[in-house]
């Protein structure tokens, strides 16, 4: 696990190419502290920061073919490298190393651009083919590993994180107002858009090729579901037989993710998903297993009881990180330097701390349960949408809206709401049962309320821009034919997962401390298999992840396997407005800084801050707005403002 960077073409700066590459790789050194290397070639440059996990001695990068015509720089893991290597050896390839890096290189020599199709893994990589004068950059199917690119003065630059691109003279950080609108509506910028104007991400499951003639971005994998009408390709299969196959796939996905030349640990949140993974690991390798978790002071967020239950049941050596509100607020500026994007929740911050604990314990690799909620329909939003459709079919029922309370037993606020306000809230968009975004409309509507705080300038730049219209246009052609559950799963798995969960909570938080997260539930074989399972088996009545629970019920204590979904949450705005709030909050939210940045209305921010300080239990909208505003101001301070000061420092000389 590493960081990559490079360019295609000829950098139009006075700096020598090697210096540019050094700067880029240096900016992402946290991703790969074990070794750093760059290569300036005729027509392209490649850089690499390495975290050694497989073939510690032989896997150095950038790696070249024997004749040095093809060069590779790679971030990630190819979990099926053993099987791919055997097949390539059978075809006459001779390997110099034991690394998965060389497997990609030889597979490319064999199959060209289609090599991605055979890879089972989390990857982003760049291949420079001097014979064809072609650069290829590629990203894994689910978007576990990041990859960004931009063009400047006719040269294409790419890197694992945006901060590497910002090292190139002439590339500056400027907030994209449309991205901010999207984040303040949906929680993520719509790929390929990023928070940075003019800087794109390569979307998951895509390959970009660049030749002197053209740049081409192509999708090589698409998450797809069967039509709602008809039984799909699993017609006639019993639930028991599908559960058995699911279990075998899950075990294989876990088994190949234990391949490593360094020890592998696991996150154990106490929830169903990480418990399943931990239990599977223990079945596969009976060795001592180290597990890690976050603990909170407040019972509203804390899950220590469940964690301890699993620790005892599985006999792991467990360590927990106590995360206070002050810890979250103190870490937040660093968190935003790593997420590189405004966010509306503090949830990444505890994970930032947790990866620090993992690293201090001497671990570089952890398995987690991330992805199960998207793949097997675990999120409450899926149940909520099902209930809303159920209520909409009998709008006069007095009884049906009461079911909403059963949905969110862990939200004290909701328990106090009356039947009619529940009905009013959840029927948002109730008129539009055929809206492809139906499942997510209440969430999007609540989130959009945060845009109340946008400045006049932002509003006029945005005009009548509609982020949801953009999202609707982005959906696959077959989307409307899918079952409603599949539709809402797609919105989570294809958008929120890579756009927020895997990036801001996942890769960026673990790599901040050079820790690699591995996600068995996101093995693409399992993802494709789960997509074909009939929706009624994924969610039976209101029992989420039903078939997953069935498939592994003998592995877990019953209290865990029957436990309803408890989403991972952390304290939000009160971290910044309570008694322990750090001093930077006043600076970042001061009228001068708010007005200079220009994104928010200074008067409105003052009022919000005063309100949150006076009344700690503010509603959802204000909670998200407070975190969103602080993170945006921190983003500005870390990226845009720094660019401005550097520019200002350089400018007088240029003018003189």
């Amino acid at each position, binding site marked *: 696990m590493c960081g990559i960077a490079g360019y295609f073409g000829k950098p139009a700066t006075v700096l020598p190419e090697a210096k540019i590459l050094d700067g880029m790789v240096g900016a992402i050194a946290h991703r790969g502290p074990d070794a750093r290397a760059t290569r300036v070639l005729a027509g392209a440059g490649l850089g690499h920061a390495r975290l050694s996990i497989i073939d510690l001695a032989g896997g150095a990068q950038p790696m070249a073919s024997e004749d040095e015509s093809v060069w590779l720089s790679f971030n990630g893991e190819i979990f099926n490298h053993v099987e791919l290597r055997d097949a390539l050896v059978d075809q006459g390839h001779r390997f110099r190393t034991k690394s998965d890096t060389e497997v990609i290189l030889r597979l490319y020599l064999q199959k060209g651009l289609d090599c991605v199709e055979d890879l089972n893994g989390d990857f982003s990589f760049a291949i420079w083919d001097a014979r064809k004068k072609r650069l290829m950059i590629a990203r894994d199917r689910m978007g576990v590993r990041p990859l960004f690119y931009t063009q400047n003065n006719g040269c294409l630059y790419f890197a694992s994180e945006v901060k590497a691109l910002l090292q190139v003279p002439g590339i500056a950080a400027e907030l994209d107002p449309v991205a901010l609108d999207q984040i303040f509506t949906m929680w993520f910028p719509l790929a390929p858009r990023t928070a940075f104007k003019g800087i794109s991400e390569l979307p998951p499951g895509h390959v970009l090729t660049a030749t002197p003639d053209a740049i081409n971005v192509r999708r090589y994998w698409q998450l797809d579901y069967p039509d709602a009408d008809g039984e799909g390709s699993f017609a006639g299969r019993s639930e028991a037989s599908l559960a058995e196959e699911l279990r075998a796939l899950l075990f294989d996905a876990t088994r190949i993710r234990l391949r490593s030349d360094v020890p592998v640990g696991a996150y154990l949140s106490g929830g169903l998903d990480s418990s399943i993974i931990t239990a599977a690991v223990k079945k596969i390798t009976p060795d001592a297993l180290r597990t890690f978790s976050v603990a909170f002071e407040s019972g509203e967020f804390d899950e220590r009881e469940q964690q301890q239950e699993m620790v005892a049941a599985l006999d792991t050596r467990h360590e927990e990180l106590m995360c206070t509100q002050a810890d979250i607020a103190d870490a937040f500026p660093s968190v935003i330097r790593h997420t590189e994007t405004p966010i509306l929740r503090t949830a990444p911050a505890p994970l930032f701390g947790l990866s620090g604990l993992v690293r201090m314990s001497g671990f570089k690799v952890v398995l987690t349960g991330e992805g199960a909620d998207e793949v097997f329909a675990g999120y409450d939003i899926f149940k909520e949408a099902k209930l809303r459709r159920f209520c909409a079919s009998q709008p006069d029922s007095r009884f049906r809206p009461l079911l909403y309370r059963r949905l969110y037993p862990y939200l004290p606020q909701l328990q106090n709401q*009356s039947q009619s306000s529940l009905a009013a809230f959840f029927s948002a968009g109730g008129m539009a049962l055929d809206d492809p975004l139906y499942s997510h409309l209440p969430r999007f509507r609540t989130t959009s309320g945060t845009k109340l705080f946008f400045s006049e300038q932002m509003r006029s730049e945005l005009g009548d821009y509609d982020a949801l219209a953009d999202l609707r246009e982005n959906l696959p052609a077959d989307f409307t034919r899918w079952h409603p559950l599949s539709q809402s799963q797609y919105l989570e798995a294809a958008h929120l997962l890579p756009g927020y969960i895997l990036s801001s909570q996942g890769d960026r938080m673990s790599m901040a401390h050079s820790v690699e997260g591995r996600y068995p539930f996101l093995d693409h074989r399992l993802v494709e298999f789960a997509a074909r399972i009939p929706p009624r088996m994924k969610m039976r009545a209101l029992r989420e992840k039903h078939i997953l629970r069935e498939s592994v019920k003998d592995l877990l204590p019953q209290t865990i396997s029957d436990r309803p979904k408890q989403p991972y949450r952390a304290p939000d705005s009160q971290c910044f407005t309570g008694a322990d709030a750090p001093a930077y909050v006043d600076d970042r939210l001061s009228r001068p800084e708010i007005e200079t940045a220009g994104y928010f*209305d200074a008067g409105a921010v003052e009022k919000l801050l005063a*309100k949150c300080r006076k009344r700690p239990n503010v509603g*959802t909208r204000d909670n998200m707005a407070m975190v969103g505003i602080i993170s945006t101001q921190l983003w500005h301070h870390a990226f845009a403002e720094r660019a401005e000061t550097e520019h200002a420092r350089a400018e007088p000389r240029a003018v003189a």
Partner: protein
Amino acid sequence: MQVDVRSDVREFIVDNFLFREDRETVSDTESLLENGLMDSTGVLELVAFLESDIGIEIQDNEIVPENFDSIENISNYANAKLSKNSN
């Protein structure tokens, strides 16, 4: 004695939900939910205010949009509760 909490309610709404300076007023009758000034959890902030600052006790079944959707409705509801208490 006839009490009128309307100005207190208005002050609370303006302080806690009317964030933007370019929107100076909110009319007594406009829907706070429909205009996006208040979300459903905002209703709970309002309930907490009425209970702690105004001093009325609110039953679950009274938390309905008819009672809480505009300054006028909130004030009428709260005034009625207060006059019932003082009788």
